[in-house]
C-alpha cells in the first residue's frame, strides 16, 4: 500500500479562501484517484496561509488490469468504418479482432482490449497538474516571467513549490515550468530554509517541529483559543467570543502566538461598539471584558505570527499605537457628530439617494414616518414617538462615525439621540428598527421599535416591488427576503392585527404621493363611491385633473391648484351636504379658468394643445392611466402578499406546523398574518382530536360525492351570490337549497338541513371571536347527520331538481367548513 503527500506552496492565500480551497483540493485529488480506479483508505487535508496539503493513505501502487471488449462494425463494412474501429481500439490489423455472430445482426468484429493497470505515480503525475490548472479560486492571478501571454497558469497568488511524494519518491511532473519535488519550507522567520521530506509523517513532524508551522486549521484554532483563555485568566479578563474573527486569524498565522496589548483607558468613554468594531475590522483584534464588571476592558488581544524574542513587548506596543491612532480618529468623529444636532443630520438625507427611482432617503423617511405613525395606533404605541423615531431613524447615516463604520448604523443614532435628550423608546427604535437582521436575530419588543421596524421594511419592499426589482432565484441584492421575513416575525411577535394588503396599498400610494397621476387619483378618491356622482361628474373631475397636471408645469398652476384643492376639501369636510350641482359648478369654474389660461398661452403652445381636442384626448388618456394604475396596485398587492405568504409558511414550518394545514388556511385568501397563524394552530390541534377526525371525514364524504357528480344546468335555480369557498366549486356550487323541496324529502335530508342551519348560526359567534376551535367543534356536530344522510338518502335522484337540491345541500356543508379552512387541501 502506498502513501501520497501533496503540498502546494504559494505566497499568502487570503484567509477567507483557505478552508474552501483545502476541501476542494482534497475532493479533486480523491475524485481523480477514484476515477482512475485507485481506491484508498483515507484522505486528510490541511491548509494555512502559505500551503494546501493532502495526504492519501492505503493507495495501491498500480491500478488493476481491466479486460474490455469493444464492439466493432459488421464484417464487410466499408473500409472507412473498419479503419476507424482499428484506430479507436488501437489495433494495427483487422486480424487482431475477433469475429462474433449474432442471430439478428450477423457477423461483426470485436476487439479484445487488455487495459493494463496504470502506476499510481503516473496517475498522480497526470492528475495534479490538471487539478492545479483547473482549480477554482474566487479571484486568481498571473505572475512572473511566464506571464507574457494569455492562457498561462493562474493561482490565487504566485505558486512557489509543489511537493509531491509517493512512498518517499518524488512523483515527477511539471506545471508551467514549476517542477514537482520533495522540498518544502517552514515558517518565514522561525522555520529553516528548504528541507526534504519523505512522506506525511516526516513532513508534519518537521514542519510542526523545527519548521514552526502548525499545519491544520484545527490545531491553530485550538492554540489561539487556548492562548486567549490563558492570557485572559491571568489578567482577570474574559474574551468577547467572536467565531468569525477566530476563523480569520486562524488563516493569518502559521505559528500563532497570542499577545495581550493595552489600550489607553481614556478611550473607554467612546461607545463600546465603536471600540470593538475598530479592533475587529481594522486590526483583527479580540476585545476583552473585565471579568468582574463584565464591561469592556482597556486591553486587546492580537494573534501574532511569531514567537517574538522579547516576548511580544514590541508587538503589543506597536499594535497599541496603531489602535490609539484609530481610536483618536473615532473620537474625532464622535465629538464632531455629537456637536451636530440629529435633526440637522436628518435634513441632509434629502440629498442622498435611497434608490434612484424611489427618491431620496429623506423621502423614504417621510413615508416611513407616516406609516409608522399609523401602525403605532394598532399596537398601542405612541404615534408621536413612532413618528419622531422614524424621522431620526436614518439620520446617523450622514454622521462621520457611520461613514467610517457602516456597521454602526442605528447603534450610533441611538447614542446621538440619547445625547440629544430624546426619549429612550425613540433612541431604542433608531437602533432596533433594522432588526431582525436574520432568522436568528432578535425581534424588537418595544412597540415604538416595532412600528418603525415594520414601516421601514414594508416601505422598502413595496418600493422595490413598485420598480420591479424583486429577488429572483438566488439573487436578492437588497435582502428583500430577509426584510419580508422580518415583517412576518414582527407581525406575529407583536400580535399586530392588520390586513397586510391594506398596508401595502397605502405604502404604494404614499410612494407616489408626489406624482401627478396619484395626486389626481387621490383627489378623485372620495368621489368613487359618492352616491350623487354620475358619470358626467366623474368625467368633469377627470377633466379637471388633467388640467391640473398640465398646469403644474405652467405659472398658472399654483393658483388653479389651490382652487381645485379647496373645492375638494370643502367636499370631504361636509360629505352629507355634497351637492352634485355644486361640484359641477366648481369644476366648471376651474375648467373655465384653465381654458382662459390657455388663451394666454403662446400661439405655438396653443397649437399643440387645442382645448377641445385636448380635453377629449386627455380625459381618455387619464382614465386609461387611472385604470392602469389601479390594475398595477392590485397586481403588486397580490404579488407581494404571496411573497409574504411564502415567508410565513417558512416560519410556520420551522415551528413544526403541517405543510398541508398551512396551505388549507392560505387558500382562504386572508392577509392578516396573526389570524392566519391562529387558524393554522387551531386547525392542527383540532385535527388531532376525535372531533377533528370526524370533521375531516365528513368533509371528505361530502366532497367526494360533489366531485363525482356532473355539474347541473342552472335551470330552476337561482345563482348564489357568494359561495364563500375559494376551493374548486364542483357540482352543487352556486346553487341555493330549496327549503320546500327538502320538506318533501326523507327525514335524514330534513335532519341535515336543520342541523346545517343550526350549525351555520352556531359558528357565527365563535368565528367572529376568532375561536376557531369552538367553530370547528360546532361543525364537527354535522358528522352524524351527514353520515345518516348518506345512509338514508340517494343523492343522485332521478328527478334533476331533487338531485340538484341535495347537491346544493352538501355544497352548503362544505361551504360552512371552508369558513375555517380549505379542507380539500388537508392530507389524510
Amino acid at each position: 500500500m502506498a502513501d501520497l503527500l501533496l503540498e502546494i506552496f504559494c505566497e499568502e492565500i487570503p484567509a477567507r479562501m483557505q478552508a474552501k480551497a483545502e476541501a476542494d483540493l482534497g475532493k479533486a485529488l480523491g475524485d481523480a484517484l477514484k476515477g482512475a480506479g485507485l481506491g484508498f483508505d483515507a484522505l486528510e487535508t490541511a491548509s494555512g496561509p502559505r500551503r494546501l496539503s493532502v495526504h492519501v493513505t492505503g493507495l495501491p501502487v498500480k491500478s488493476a488490469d481491466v479486460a474490455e471488449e469493444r464492439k466493432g462494425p459488421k464484417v464487410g463494412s466499408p473500409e472507412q468504418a473498419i479503419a476507424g474501429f482499428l484506430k479507436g481500439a488501437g489495433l494495427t490489423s483487422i486480424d487482431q479482432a475477433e469475429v462474433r455472430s449474432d442471430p439478428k445482426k450477423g457477423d461483426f468484429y470485436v476487439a479484445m482490449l487488455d487495459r493494463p493497470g496504470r502506476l499510481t505515480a503516473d496517475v498522480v503525475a497526470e492528475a495534479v497538474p490538471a487539478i492545479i490548472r483547473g482549480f477554482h479560486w474566487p479571484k486568481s492571478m498571473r505572475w512572473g516571467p511566464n506571464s507574457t501571454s494569455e492562457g498561462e497558469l493562474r493561482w490565487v497568488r504566485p505558486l512557489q513549490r509543489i511537493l509531491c511524494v509517493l512512498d518517499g519518491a518524488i512523483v515527477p511532473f511539471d506545471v508551467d515550468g514549476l517542477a514537482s519535488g520533495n522540498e518544502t519550507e517552514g515558517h518565514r522567520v522561525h522555520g529553516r530554509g528548504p528541507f526534504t521530506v519523505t512522506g506525511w509523517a516526516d513532513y508534519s513532524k518537521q514542519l510542526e517541529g523545527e519548521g514552526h508551522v502548525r499545519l491544520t486549521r484545527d490545531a491553530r484554532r485550538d492554540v489561539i483559543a487556548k492562548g486567549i483563555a490563558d492570557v485572559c485568566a491571568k489578567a482577570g479578563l474574559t474574551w468577547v467570543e467572536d467565531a468569525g474573527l477566530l476563523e480569520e486569524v486562524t488563516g493569518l498565522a502559521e505559528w500563532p502566538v497570542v499577545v495581550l496589548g493595552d489600550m489607553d483607558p481614556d478611550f473607554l468613554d467612546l461607545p463600546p461598539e465603536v471600540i470593538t468594531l475598530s479592533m475587529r475590522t481594522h486590526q483583527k483584534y479580540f476585545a476583552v471584558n473585565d471579568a468582574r464588571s463584565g464591561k469592556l476592558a482597556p486591553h486587546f488581544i492580537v494573534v501574532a505570527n511569531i514567537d517574538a524574542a522579547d516576548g511580544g513587548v514590541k508587538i503589543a506596543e506597536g499594535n497599541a499605537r496603531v489602535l490609539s491612532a484609530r481610536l483618536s480618529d473615532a473620537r474625532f468623529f464622535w465629538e464632531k457628530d455629537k456637536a451636530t444636532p440629529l435633526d440637522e443630520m436628518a435634513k441632509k438625507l434629502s440629498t442622498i439617494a435611497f434608490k434612484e427611482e424611489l427618491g431620496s432617503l429623506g423621502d423614504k423617511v417621510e413615508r416611513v414616518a407616516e406609516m409608522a405613525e399609523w401602525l403605532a395606533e394598532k399596537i398601542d404605541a405612541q404615534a408621536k414617538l413612532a413618528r419622531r423615531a422614524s424621522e431620526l431613524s436614518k439620520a446617523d447615516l450622514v454622521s462621520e462615525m457611520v461613514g467610517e463604520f457602516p456597521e454602526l448604523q442605528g447603534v450610533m443614532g441611538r447614542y446621538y439621540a440619547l445625547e440629544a435628550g430624546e426619549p429612550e423608546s425613540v433612541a431604542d427604535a433608531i437602533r432596533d428598527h433594522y432588526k431582525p437582521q436574520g432568522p436568528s436575530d432578535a425581534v424588537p419588543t418595544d412597540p415604538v421599535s416595532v412600528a418603525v421596524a415594520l414601516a421601514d421594511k414594508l416601505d422598502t419592499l413595496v418600493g422595490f416591488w413598485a420598480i420591479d426589482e424583486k429577488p429572483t432565484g438566488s439573487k436578492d441584492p437588497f435582502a428583500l427576503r430577509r426584510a419580508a421575513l422580518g415583517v412576518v416575525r414582527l407581525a406575529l411577535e407583536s400580535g399586530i392585527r392588520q390586513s397586510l394588503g391594506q398596508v401595502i396599498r397605502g405604502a404604494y400610494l404614499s410612494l407616489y404621493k408626489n406624482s401627478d397621476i396619484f395626486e389626481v387619483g387621490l383627489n378623485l378618491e372620495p368621489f368613487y363611491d359618492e352616491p350623487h356622482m354620475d358619470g358626467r361628474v366623474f368625467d368633469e373631475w377627470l377633466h379637471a385633473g388633467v388640467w391640473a397636471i398640465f398646469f403644474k408645469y405652467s405659472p398658472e398652476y399654483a393658483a388653479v391648484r389651490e382652487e381645485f384643492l379647496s373645492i375638494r376639501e370643502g367636499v370631504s369636510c361636509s360629505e352629507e351636504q355634497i351637492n352634485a350641482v355644486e361640484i359641477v359648478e366648481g369644476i366648471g369654474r376651474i375648467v373655465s379658468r384653465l381654458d382662459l389660461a390657455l388663451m394666454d398661452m403662446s400661439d405655438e403652445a396653443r397649437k399643440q394643445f387645442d382645448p377641445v381636442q385636448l380635453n377629449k384626448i386627455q380625459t381618455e388618456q387619464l382614465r386609461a392611466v387611472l385604470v392602469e394604475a389601479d390594475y398595477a396596485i392590485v397586481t403588486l398587492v397580490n404579488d407581494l402578499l404571496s411573497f409574504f405568504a411564502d415567508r410565513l409558511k417558512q416560519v410556520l414550518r420551522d415551528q413544526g406546523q403541517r405543510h398541508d394545514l398551512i396551505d388549507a388556511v392560505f387558500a382562504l385568501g386572508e392577509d392578516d398574518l396573526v389570524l392566519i397563524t391562529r387558524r393554522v394552530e387551531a386547525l392542527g390541534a383540532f385535527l388531532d382530536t376525535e372531533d377533528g377526525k370526524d370533521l375531516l371525514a365528513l368533509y371528505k364524504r361530502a366532497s367526494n360525492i360533489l366531485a363525482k357528480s356532473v355539474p347541473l344546468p342552472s335551470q330552476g335555480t337561482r345563482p348564489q351570490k357568494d359561495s364563500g369557498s375559494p376551493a374548486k366549486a364542483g357540482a352543487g356550487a352556486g346553487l341555493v337549497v330549496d327549503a320546500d323541496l327538502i320538506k318533501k324529502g326523507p327525514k335524514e335530508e330534513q335532519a341535515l338541513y336543520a342541523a346545517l342551519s343550526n350549525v351555520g348560526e352556531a359558528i357565527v359567534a365563535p368565528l367572529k371571536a376568532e375561536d376557531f376551535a369552538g367553530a370547528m367543534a360546532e361543525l364537527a356536530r354535522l358528522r352524524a347527520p351527514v353520515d345518516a344522510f348518506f345512509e338514508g338518502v340517494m343523492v343522485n335522484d332521478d328527478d334533476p331538481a331533487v338531485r340538484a337540491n341535495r347537491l346544493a345541500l352538501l355544497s352548503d356543508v362544505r361551504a360552512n367548513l371552508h369558513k375555517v379552512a380549505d379542507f380539500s387541501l388537508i392530507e389524510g
Partner: protein
Amino acid sequence: MPAPKAQPKPKSFQDLILTLQAYWAEQGCAILQPYDMEVGAGTLHPGTVLRALGPKNWRAAYVQPSRRPKDARYGENPNRLGHYYQFQVILKPNPANLQDLYLTSLYKIGIDPMVHDIRFVEDDWENPTVGAWGLGWEVWCDGMEVSQYTYFQQVGGLDVFPVSGELTYGLERLAMYVFGVDNVYDLPFNDPDSAVPLTYGDVFLENERQQSAFNFEHSDVEMLKRWFADCESQSNALRDAGKPLPAYDYALKASHTFNLIDARGAISPTERQAYIARVRDLARGAAAQWAEQEEARAS
C-alpha cells in the same frame, strides 16, 4: 529563506529613503527622480503606470511626492497630510523571490523580524482612474499597514503581459513606526546630530498650513473648472496626434485639478462621477495608445 538579521535603524527620514534607494538600486532598479507633476499617488508616475504596459522588461524605484488636497489638515493632525511621500518600486516581470526581496528591504531599515510581526493581509488594489487593478496584500508590521504589495493584472483597462510586481511604501508612516514617533512633524528629517538638525515639521509644517488654506479656502473653482476643460482638450488633442506621453501628462493635470475642485466640495455627487469618468477616459486613452506603441516598437 533563512531568517535574516535586521540592520541598525536609519538615523533620519532621509536616511530611510536613502537606504531604500540603495537597496533597490542593488536589485537592478533604475532610481528615477520624482515626476515633476502633481499626482495623488506614486503609482501614477509614468514610470509605473505606463511602463507596466507593453512587453518590455522594466525595473525602477523612486520617491514620489503625493498631493491629496482633501486629506490636508492645516498641519493639525499628527497622522494626516495633504502632501506626503511614497516610495515606489516596480519590477517587471516580478521576480519569483519578490516577497523575500521586499522583506529584506524592511530588515534593511531596521525592522527586526524576530521582534516584529510582519504579515501579508489580503488587499486587492485598484485604481479605476487609470483602469488598473491587481492582487496582493497590505503588509502589516505590528498591526500597522507599512506597504501595499500588488501584482498588476490590468493597467489602462488592458491585461498586462508580463505581470509587474509593485510595492508602495508610505514613507512618513513607515518612518514614524521605525522611529517610534507619534506625530509626523516630530520625525527627524536629517541626522539629529548634524549641524542643522531639521524635523519634518521644520520642513513641511508651514507648507501644510498654507496649502490647506489654499485647498479649502482660496482656490478659484471657476478657474479650476476652466483649467480642467483645457487640460482635457489638450490631452485629447495630443492623443489624436499620437503622443500618449504628453497626453498622459495632461490627464494627470486634469486629475489633480479635479482633486482641487473636489476638495472645495463644490460639486454634486453626480457631477463628481462625471468628472471622474472624464479623467478616466483621458488616462485610459493615453495608456492604451502607449501600450499599442510599445507593442509596435518591440516587434
